[in-house]
């Protein structure tokens, strides 16, 4: 039954006879309430997918407004207060309501139990609670927005946020506090599930790398997020009572807030990237039909990133008046934390060697990820290097750096994952050529948007600027032009994925001929995933095992 050799591995069932399985998690129960009260991890994943997409487009709309304002050097489109609210809302929404939950809460939620051979996450109700917390956090953010917005920047710098602004800081802080607990509970659920719910035979080193990456990210969520929670609580209290923990005139230290904030927010960037790295591992392996090169190295590098990620937060404060000696230590540690990422990139690259590579859409996104994340990561080295950071910090260089890792890296990985698992989640294929177009469009648009920003940054254009000297205009125009292309590139998947829900080709169990447990069950899966508890009797990414299995299978769709 193996697919004929061509430039693709897609093996769809015969479309004239194929059907979506009669029983699956989607049609198991009906009605809105059956979704809102579900405790099925797959349904919760779908709830998350819908909500984060919603917030992504809101965040994206703000990005569009930012770029529009920056088209001209004059402050002409909106007032500076409004502009400040734009980038604050953009940052808060994109980070806390989109990127942090993006892959873990959707794909992770959907796949981790299946990949481990479990029926559900360890605490299904807490999983649902976590979605509700997320929604409360999101609603509060929207409330803050509707009431007039916040203009602290996503970093809530004290004493600005505590004493000098009269916008809805407390509402926004509460929103993030609540959303933070949603993330803590997701992480907690994953860790317990990974430790406790693996099916027989599923040893640590038989787990897909996707699960390893999520394990590492979950550690960060569980250990880091509470510190953000307390930092924001203190901000809210200080705002309410004006006590002075962060107020220098009353003897407090504003840098204390920075320490607490970045103690979470640096690890948070790894919360954002690690799950994406998990996606890339799956995609690369599947489309080169090979086990990931250096499986253990990739697995351990995830854990190493999680561990070292906790020791470098001060690199966000290098010029803020921290001690030079401790800056030295943190700069050194920053260099160390970059190495595991390099290990991963090279292992993925060498997975291709001697493979049998095809170029379906998820693979294109994965290639995009590798190139852009490398640039983004290496520009992180610029910032970690003390003397260079002095010139680059607080300029567009930083903006470019983090959009390269977050948008070029994580968002690409998210889209790779969504396309890759779309057939599993919905039972239908997305339209292949249109999606390739979207992938290429985003890649081009992305580079056009953010490459000029590196140059702008080195030229010295400060970030969070509403108006700027006229000589920076050309690069800004390029950037805005790119953002338009990019926005178009992101609208496309939205549209055709929605279209495919009804009209897409029926995917069958395993359109990619992939090895993961999730591909051995029907798509969309059953309510409790497996008819019988599976037994893992082979290594992860064992394509020979898959070939044997397929050879012996009588029918594909039963």
């Amino acid at each position, binding site marked *: 039954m193996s697919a004929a050799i061509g430039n693709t591995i897609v093996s769809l069932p015969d479309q004239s006879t194929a059907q979506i399985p009669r029983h699956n998690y989607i049609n198991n129960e009906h009605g809105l309430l059956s979704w809102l009260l579900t405790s099925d991890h797959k349904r919760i994943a779908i709830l998350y997918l819908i909500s984060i997409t919603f917030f992504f487009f809101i965040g994206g709309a703000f990005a569009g407004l930012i770029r529009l304002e920056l088209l001209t050097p004059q402050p002409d489109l909106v007032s500076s207060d409004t502009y400040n609210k734009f980038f604050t809302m953009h940052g808060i929404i994109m980070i806390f309501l989109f990127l942090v939950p993006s892959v873990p809460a959707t794909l992770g939620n959907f796949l981790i139990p299946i990949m481990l051979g479990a029926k559900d996450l360890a605490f299904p109700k*807490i999983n649902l609670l976590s979605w509700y917390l997320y929604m409360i956090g999101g609603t509060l953010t929207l409330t803050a927005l509707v009431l007039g917005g916040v203009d602290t920047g996503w970093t809530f710098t004290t004493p600005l946020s505590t004493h000098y602004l009269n916008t809805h800081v407390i509402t926004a802080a509460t929103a993030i506090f609540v959303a933070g607990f949603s993330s803590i509970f997701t992480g907690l659920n994953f860790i317990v599930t990974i430790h406790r719910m693996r099916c027989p035979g599923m040893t640590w080193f038989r787990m897909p790398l996707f699960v390893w990456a999520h394990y590492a990210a979950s550690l960060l969520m569980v250990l880091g997020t509470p510190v953000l929670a307390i930092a924001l609580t203190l901000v809210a209290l200080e705002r309410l*009572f004006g006590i002075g923990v962060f107020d220098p005139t009353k003897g407090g230290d504003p840098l204390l807030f920075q320490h607490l904030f970045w103690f979470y927010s640096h690890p948070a960037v790894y919360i954002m990237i690690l799950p994406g790295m998990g996606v890339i591992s799956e995609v690369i392996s599947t489309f080169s039909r090979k086990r990931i090169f250096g499986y253990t190295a990739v697995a351990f590098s995830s854990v190493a990133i999680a561990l070292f990620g906790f020791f470098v937060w001060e690199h966000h404060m290098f010029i803020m008046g921290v001690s030079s000696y401790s800056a030295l230590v943190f700069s050194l540690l920053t260099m160390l934390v970059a190495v595991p990422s390099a290990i991963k990139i090279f292992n993925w690259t060498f997975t291709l060697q001697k493979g049998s590579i095809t170029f379906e859409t998820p693979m294109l996104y994965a290639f995009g990820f590798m190139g852009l994340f490398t640039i983004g990561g290496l520009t992180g080295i610029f910032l970690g290097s003390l003397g260079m950071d002095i010139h680059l910090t607080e300029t567009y260089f930083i903006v470019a750096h983090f959009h390269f890792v977050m948008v070029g890296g994580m968002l690409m990985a998210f889209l790779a994952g969504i396309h890759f698992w779309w057939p599993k989640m919905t039972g239908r294929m997305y339209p292949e050529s249109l999606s390739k177009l979207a992938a290429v469009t985003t890649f081009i648009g992305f580079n056009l948007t953010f490459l000029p920003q590196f140059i702008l940054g080195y030229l010295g254009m400060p970030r969070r600027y509403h108006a700027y000297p006229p000589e920076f205009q050309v690069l800004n125009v390029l950037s805005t032009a790119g953002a338009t292309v990019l926005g178009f590139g992101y609208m496309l998947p939205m549209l055709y994925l929605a279209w495919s829900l009804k009209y897409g080709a029926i995917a069958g169990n395993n359109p990619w001929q992939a090895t993961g447990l999730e591909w051995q069950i029907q798509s969309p899966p059953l309510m409790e995933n497996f*008819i*019988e508890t599976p037994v893992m009797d082979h290594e992860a990414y064992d394509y020979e095992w898959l070939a044997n299995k397929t050879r012996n299978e009588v029918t594909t769709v039963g």
Partner: protein
Amino acid sequence: MDNALASTGLTTQPAPDPHPHETAVHAEHEHVALPQHRHHFETEEQQREAGSFGMWLFLVTEIMFFGGMFFAYLLYRNWYYPAFAAASSQLSVPLGGTNTAILITSGFCMALGVWAAEVRRRKMLVVTLILTTLFGLAFLGIKYDEYHEKYELHHIPGNNFNVSQFVNPAAYGIKEEPLAPDMAQKTQIFFFLYFAMTGMHAVHLIIGIGLLFWLTWRAHRGDFSSGYVAPIENFGLYWHFIDIVWLFLFPLLYLINRHPLH
């Protein structure tokens, strides 16, 4: 055990079965299914261990949560030691000490409660839970009294905060060295941390007491007297954790410098 299962680990071995996923039925591990057994766990043992592991992870997040405040405390105590010492002397050691004892006792009752659930004694469990609740309430009562006193002395940080007591203790009949006015201002940071830390602790207690009511009711109904002890056990962990936080708060806040200054 289960070597039969493990021997299927060879990857090259052809799998003639169209459904290679064997059911993992392990008779010797199957306990009598309790009504509380959640469907997605293989065994009840697994469920119980997952529960306590999850609870511990949650407590670890709590460590980090309180950790942020403990760090702020450490920093400012080192910077403004005289202010911290003077302000700390305003707290009542008898009340704080009593509260410590009360909380330890309530923890002891909780521990007995876990035992009672484990040996399936319904009455005993209910009684210990009620005692735990009562001691928790007593703690809050005393705490309220202390807060109230601070309120009357204008020691609540904010607009009404007043440092005159530290600048001029003699006028208040307090035998303490006066603080310089600028240092006296810093007592506000102490009191802020005092209220933030004990307040956060109290919030945890209040949540705990809420849960205790619910658990007592369920225990009374007999939910936990048939071998299903996980909720009691996990709540016990939470309760003890709050006690332990207090065991640090008490010396740090109340006992900074109790011997006369030289």
